């Protein structure tokens, strides 16, 4: 770890954080266009090509809005809440591997040689990253609670209380639905989980290897029930439709961010989309092979690239970038599903939400765990 290595890693961390923040305007644009098309409207299409720069115009508007604080609000907490909103999403996204590690070959910089560096395409590779992500994203509820509390507004408080109860309830279902995945791959490290999903569907039974050649070796085929549970729970965790009761317009004006305006409200939006991004990335990593192309292993890709005439120095970098784009495509498919569901399904009632979480998802998750354990025991 010399200075250069630290600098490169710092640049990488900043890049990943900016990546997360910069996807948000794109997502807002996709959301508005998609909702428009689903409802047979046009959506924002005036500013720039296809209305893409609409968000830039919006941002300028947000920046010049008046700073407004309600009279009875607790000032420090009122400012603290939107700042806190960003942190959990950013921390969690940093722990997700976006692509294979690549090496930077020896290069000279100001007539000094710098040795080959192995750069991992994630902010930090923890061997307990899955629990870490769960733990950090559990902190997301605090910004909502603080916002609701500090606004000194009934609607905000109700929104915040709803959000807190919902997130606690679904945290359980989320955790239990992941136990099956952990049992199968027997690790908390996301990179190891992704690496186990290469190639075609294969499993060991009493020492013999069985392969099903027409299916990719993805987690969803091992854990279909686990995937469905995780999928539902992540919708509730991110407070998205059809579980967005914390900000149900008909009942609560705008929920916990009723009193927020301008850039402060923007922070909440960024946080919400950030949570969506983390959720989609987790789904991709755990159930859809992460950055792996189906049926193709990483070694085959670099082999293909070298046969196509890519020089050795760039080889690992280009391989990494290819896999990164594959990862982003998968993530965007899930983000699209998030948006699609929002404009298709009606909102739940609050008691229905709680009943679904506690009496359906949680027992099914436990059942999934037990079945997985029994099958693993038999196959062993």
């Amino acid at each position, binding site marked *: 770890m010399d200075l250069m290595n630290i600098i490169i890693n710092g640049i990488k961390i900043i890049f990943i954080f900016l990546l997360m923040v910069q996807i948000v305007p794109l997502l807002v644009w996709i959301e508005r266009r998609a909702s428009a098309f689903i409802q047979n409207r046009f959506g924002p299409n005036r500013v720039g090509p296809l209305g893409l720069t609409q968000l830039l115009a919006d941002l300028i508007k947000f920046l010049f809005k008046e700073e407004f604080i309600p009279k009875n609000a607790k000032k420090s*907490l009122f400012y603290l809440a939107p700042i806190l909103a960003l942190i959990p999403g950013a921390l969690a996204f940093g722990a997700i591997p976006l692509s294979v590690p690549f090496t930077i070959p020896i290069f000279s910089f100001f007539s000094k040689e710098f040795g080959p560096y192995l750069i991992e395409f994630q902010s930090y590779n*923890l*061997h*307990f990253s899955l*629990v*870490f992500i*769960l*733990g*950090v994203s*559990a*902190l997301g*509820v*605090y910004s909502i*609670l*603080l916002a*609701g*509390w500090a606004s000194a507004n009934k609607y905000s*408080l109700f929104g*915040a*209380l709803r959000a*807190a*109860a919902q*997130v*606690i309830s679904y*945290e359980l279902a989320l*955790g239990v639905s992941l136990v099956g995945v952990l049992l199968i791959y027997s690790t*908390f490290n996301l990179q190891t989980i992704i690496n186990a999903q290469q190639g075609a569907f294969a499993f060991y039974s009493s020492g013999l290897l069985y392969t099903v050649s027409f299916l990719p070796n993805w987690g969803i085929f091992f854990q279909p029930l686990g995937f469905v549970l995780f999928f539902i729970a992540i919708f509730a965790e991110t407070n998205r439709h059809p579980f967005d009761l914390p900000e149900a317009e008909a009942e609560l004006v705008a929920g916990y961010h009723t009193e927020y305006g301008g850039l402060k409200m923007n922070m909440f939006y960024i946080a919400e989309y950030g949570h969506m991004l983390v959720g989609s990335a987790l789904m991709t990593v755990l159930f859809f092979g992460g950055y792996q192309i189906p049926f193709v292993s990483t070694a085959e890709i670099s082999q293909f690239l070298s046969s196509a005439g890519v020089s050795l120095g760039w080889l690992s970098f280009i391989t990494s970038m290819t896999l990164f784009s594959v990862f982003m495509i998968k993530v965007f498919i899930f983000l699209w599903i998030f948006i699609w569901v929002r404009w298709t399904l009606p909102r739940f009632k609050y008691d229905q939400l709680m009943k679904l979480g506690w009496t359906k998802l949680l027992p099914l998750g436990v059942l999934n765990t037990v079945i997985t354990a029994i099958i693993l025991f038999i196959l062993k």
Partner: protein
Amino acid sequence: MFYFFAILLLFSAIIVVSTKNSMTAILALTGTMIVQAFLFFLLKAYFLGAVQLIVYTGAVMVLFVMVIMIFNNDKEVFKIPEPPMSVWLKISAVAWFSGLVSGIFLISKNSLHLTLVTDSNFSNLLKDMSINGLSQVLFTKYLLAFEVMGVFLLAITVGVISIAKSRGGTHE
């Protein structure tokens, strides 16, 4: 690194006990929990640190915050008249802390030379990932305790639900 976290921890703990506002106290306690999770990471107890984040900050403290939020509508509730502290309590507190501080200085002069008994059966488990080692010990040596824990938690769940279902005296 240790000193940074230690000072942060003590600072937020002092805020917890000294503040008059319950909400501030609880937020400071949340800060304490988070800092402690990082101290666990520092001590290579990664899984425990993550569990600390999930269980304490994610669930327990949220419960506290919710209770405070629900009952803060009438402001008078939390202004319980603090009784004048008895002189003896004050004196004993001051004596206790001065004793502690002097003890710290004594230790710093000549360290304790603690000898620790290492468990040879499980000492190698710490070296690889702490999660594997933890689970191996948890499901072999402490299996009975684990099972008892499960039964205990079930009993707690039933108890809390029965408390919640009871009308609580408002509908007598």
